[in-house]
């Protein structure tokens, strides 16, 4: 019997990263800004009223995609059948169907603040959502989701008066785990803070297209 030790030093998620880079490169060439939305189930990751296309990730049902299609927006549903996150290869499967003339491609990840944080999907912007009913202590409880994100959106802010959610504390904790995080506070119900978020996405799109020009 001969024993051999092989030094590998390979990233376990290297193949995911490679597919993600290919997706990012192709979408960037088309001038499409891709946004990966992370959050808990029901954190209001998506309430679209913009000209966009959406990839929905859920454990079961087409319901979210149907809701978005009902608003006249192209949507694809990825049903993971129990898996707690999306992977780049799942997005790659949809890739041929994505129209070239889009501005924004939103990917709403499976509702989960843990697992999706490990997977690059080829996005330009990673956005973590935290809804007011979830509590203000999430950033330190789920550091990976917050450290790997570019922006944090605190949603359902209309509930602030009714709940013991300390906005300042949440913002401070989030900046402690990721000092570069851009923070937005929104209420889709009261239509507040949404314009600032749209401006942020638009400036990302602008930068991408400038780079392409």
């Amino acid at each position, binding site marked *: *019997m*001969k*024993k*051999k*030790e*092989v*030094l*590998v*030093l*390979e*990233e*376990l*998620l*290297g*193949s*995911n990263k490679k597919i993600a880079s290919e997706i990012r490169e192709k979408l960037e060439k088309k001038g499409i800004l891709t946004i990966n939305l992370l959050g808990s189930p029901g954190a209001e990751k998506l309430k679209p009223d913009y000209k966009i296309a959406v990839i929905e990730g859920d454990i079961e049902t087409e319901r979210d995609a149907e809701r978005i299609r009902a608003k006249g927006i192209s949507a694809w549903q990825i049903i993971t059948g129990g*898996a*707690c*996150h999306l*992977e780049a290869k799942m997005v790659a499967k949809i890739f041929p169907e994505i129209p070239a003339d889009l501005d924004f491609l939103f990917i709403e990840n499976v509702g989960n603040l*843990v*697992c999706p*944080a*490990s*997977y690059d999907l080829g996005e330009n912007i990673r956005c973590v959502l935290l809804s007011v009913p979830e509590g203000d202590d999430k950033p*330190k409880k789920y*550091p*990976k989701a917050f*450290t790997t994100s570019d922006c944090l959106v605190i949603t359902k802010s209309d509930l602030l008066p009714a709940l013991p959610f300390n906005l300042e504390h949440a913002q401070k904790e989030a*900046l*402690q*785990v*990721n*000092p570069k995080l851009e923070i937005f506070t929104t209420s889709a119900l009261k239509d507040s803070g949404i314009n600032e978020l749209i401006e942020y996405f638009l400036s990302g799109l602008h930068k991408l297209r400038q780079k392409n020009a």
Partner: protein
Amino acid sequence: MHELSIVASLFEILEEKAKEKKAKKILSVKLKVGALSGVVPEFLETAFNIYKEDTIAAESKLEIEKVPLKIRCQQCGTETVKDDFVFICEKCDSSELKTLSGTELLLEKIEMEI
């Protein structure tokens, strides 16, 4: 719980390397898992032991080196091992920090029988 998906990716690499080296079986596998890698080493081990059955690594042992989160302050140069994931320099309060280690999820080496 995405550890099983990660183990599936690990086995893709293991099988490829074993084929490349014409190995009869895999004896041990060593991983490096950072504190901020997003995976739980204990779950990774459980998933590995379930997954390995009937594979070339069926009799293998998994070794996991846990790598702490280490940062260096770009302002004052202090290096700190963090266990609280607060990205602020403990010495000078700066948030200009560089992560030195702790985010890795790496297959370091494989021991094979050839």
